[in-house]
């Protein structure tokens, strides 16, 4: 096969992996990276390498399932493990993703505020446009907007380079693992993995690959798509950490929010860095606010056997449209009501995501090894060993994370 032909095949296949991985850097992800950079400088950079490997291993299996079976993950779980586990899983997924949606609207509100726009105007406006896009829009327009929005992430790369980091130290921090036995350090390290590998994105990736109808013969191109997507997402995270580590860390500035990072950057790195951080945050938050509720209503309807689809109306697919609408309305209302327990909800959401992740990964790996489902495409022996190790590590770390959330003093 000529190089040219391979390239054409790749371009037609690419998309799901890259878009999924990019949306993974949503408001909570950006917050974690900014905080990690500002608090510990370059010393957490190395965690990105094992995180990327884990992400690639897991996403590859999920993508393979999508290609081979042509079905979504919630579809496969329902068909192989019955209604009970699926139902409870979907309930938890709904609440967890509700929290993620709130986090994304909060990110949107915060980025609008620091740009000088009132959240009481911009949150309803954002919610309304997100809602309209799906309820009234066509898929083509949605996809174009998404792909364009993915490009905006490169703003972080530029600001990272412009920050003039000490490249030698950056390389050292990236390739030489260092551990500080400090509860905050450990928690942030685990947090980086936690925000990168989430339950909903496994569902999202598999569905979008199944939807695209990628054939087994084209699977290699799809694997490349996943690989590139995972790399891009971690390159973006890398530059967020580098920017904050270069500019904020030496000054000893502590931040708790992604928007605080943007404000703190303004006097030190100038307006450009401020704008890149503010606008990229707004962009990432809004992307998350579109995808997460939409994805959630898809998986739930897929698992329950209800009508679904962007092209359907409230009459044809009431459950689908209502789940989507309720998520967006609730999330934006929670942001606007003063004194709403936002932090509690977000903590709850990360706890539920943490509880759900082991189940999702265990279902995924047992499905991918099920010959009845996957035929000859089950994991090979060595790959299976790597996959089990990865999943085992992620599960143990998630367990640690849950412990630190419940017993902050013990950590």
């Amino acid at each position, binding site marked *: 096969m000529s190089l040219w032909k391979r390239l054409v095949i790749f371009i037609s296949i690419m998309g799901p992996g890259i878009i999924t991985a990019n949306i993974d850097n949503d408001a909570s992800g950006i917050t974690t990276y900014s905080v990690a950079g500002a608090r510990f400088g370059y010393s957490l950079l190395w965690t990105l390498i094992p995180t990327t490997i884990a992400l690639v291993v897991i996403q590859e299996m999920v993508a393979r399932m999508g290609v081979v*079976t*042509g*079905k*979504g993950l919630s*579809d496969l779980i*329902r*068909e192989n493990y*019955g*209604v*009970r586990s*699926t*139902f409870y899983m979907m309930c938890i997924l709904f609440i967890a993703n509700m929290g993620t949606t709130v986090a994304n609207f909060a990110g949107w509100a915060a980025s609008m505020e620091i740009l000088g726009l009132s959240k009481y105007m911009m949150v309803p406006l954002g919610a309304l446009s997100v809602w309209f896009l*799906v309820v009234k829009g*066509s*898929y*083509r327009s*949605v*996809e174009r907007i*998404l792909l364009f929005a993915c490009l905006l992430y490169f703003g972080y790369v530029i600001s990272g380079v412009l920050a003039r980091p000490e490249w030698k130290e950056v390389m050292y921090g990236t390739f030489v693992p260092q551990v500080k036995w400090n509860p905050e350090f450990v928690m942030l390290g685990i947090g980086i993995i936690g925000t990168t590998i989430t339950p909903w994105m496994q569902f*999202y990736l598999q*569905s*979008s690959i*199944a*939807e*695209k*109808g990628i*054939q087994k013969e084209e699977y290699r191109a799809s694997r490349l798509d996943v690989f590139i997507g995972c790399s891009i997402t971690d390159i973006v995270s890398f530059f967020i950490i580098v920017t904050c580590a270069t500019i904020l860390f030496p000054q000893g500035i502590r931040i708790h929010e992604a928007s605080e990072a943007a404000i703190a950057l303004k006097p030190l790195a100038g307006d450009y860095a401020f704008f890149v951080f503010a606008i990229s945050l707004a962009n990432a938050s809004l992307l998350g606010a*579109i*995808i997460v509720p*939409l*994805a959630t209503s*898809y998986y739930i309807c897929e698992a*329950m*056997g209800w*009508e*679904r*689809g*962007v*092209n359907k109306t409230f009459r044809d697919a009431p459950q689908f449209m209502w789940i989507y609408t309720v998520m967006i309305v609730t999330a934006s209302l929670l942001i606007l009501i003063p004194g709403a327990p936002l932090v509690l909800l977000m903590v709850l959401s990360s706890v539920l995501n943490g509880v759900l992740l082991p189940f999702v990964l265990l279902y995924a790996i047992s499905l991918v090894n099920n010959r009845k489902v996957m035929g000859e495409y089950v994991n090979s022996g060595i790959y299976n060993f790597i996959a089990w190790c990865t999943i085992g590590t992620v599960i143990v770390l998630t367990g640690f994370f849950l412990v630190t959330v419940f017993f902050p003093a013990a950590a």
Partner: protein
Amino acid sequence: MPFFGELFVSEIQKKSVLDPRGEELGKVRDLVVVKGDPLPKVSALIIEKKKRLYCLLWDDLNIFNKRIISTKIYGDAVHLYEYGETDLLIVRDIFDKQIVDANGARVVRVNDIRLEGFNSEAVLLAVDVGMRGIMRRLGVERGGDDLLKLFRKRLPYNLISWNYIQPLEPRLTKISLTVPRQMVSELHPADIADIISQISQKEGESFLKGLDVETAAETLSELQPDVQAAIITGMETEEAADIIEEMSPDEAADVLSDLPEGKAKEILEHIEKEEAEDIQELLSHEEDTAGGLMTNEFIAYSPELTVKEAMEAFRRDAGEVETVYYIYVVDADERLLGVVSLRELLLSPLDAKLSDIMETKIKVVPPETDEEEVAGVISKYNLIALPVVDSDGVLLGIIAMDDIIDRILPPAAKRRRRKV
């Protein structure tokens, strides 16, 4: 006669099966189904005791209802059971799977199954696809009902009769009736395409194969290009050629243009020569131009023909052609001279010549015209079809109004079915 009345399978899952002494033989794990007349029936129960599975034949049962299941035989007479691929089991193979509701033309998921006593057999009467089924499986049906009563509503039963369902898995298809197949065939191809676009590609393939060639061809042309290509690629060349041959040349060209070159060539070789040539010619044009949109099936007669002769010829030719509302008038070199609408033809005196009644001021486009422009011309002059001519005025083909509408406003099944 062990079974009267009716029950849901989920109501007897994990239920104890008692022998004549009242000792427990095991708990119900699954039910084996075989083809029956008129409906599939239960042939055996699979029961579990101490992690071992046993097969309990239907004829050995004494009582079978939602409260009591008991046998005529004792524990030493039941046989061990091993899961096999050949048996069809309700819980393993039917529960939670997707099926097609041929009545409502939609894809649904099986939440529960209703059995009914019929001639002392338990037959599969209906499939529960509603919320009630899910709640019953979760064990909260009554709770949900009570909750809704507070709002003076009732949880609706959402059952589909087994007669109306079309399973997607080949093994399941064997035990179902031929009726749903026919019902599916009676659906509009656009609705069938909608169903196919909602299920996985493999299922779509086997679903399409089950249709008659004509319906399959019409359905295929309603699908999105990627799905078309994937399904055709997965088929045997012979089968694919049969379906493609049934399509009109422009639609066939659309499908073939999305296939890998080798496969397209292979299929073309299996198609009747004349038709293959038509398709080949269309394939040479860009997809989004007039040439790519047109079909080379149209009605064209010589100007010398009288209305009477033209009508006779029309009766002969019109069955094969999709767009028959315009009769094009061409000279011996196939150059377009004029057009006669079907209405004019019917209203004109029988002895008039076509050259006398034809309209000579006609709108035409060259094959390289962009699709937007084609749509503009059709819309502006209120045409049903627009002729495409080359620089010498030779009539190459026509673009029918419905083909251009499909390009601008694709039907649901053609639109990318994506979950963003």
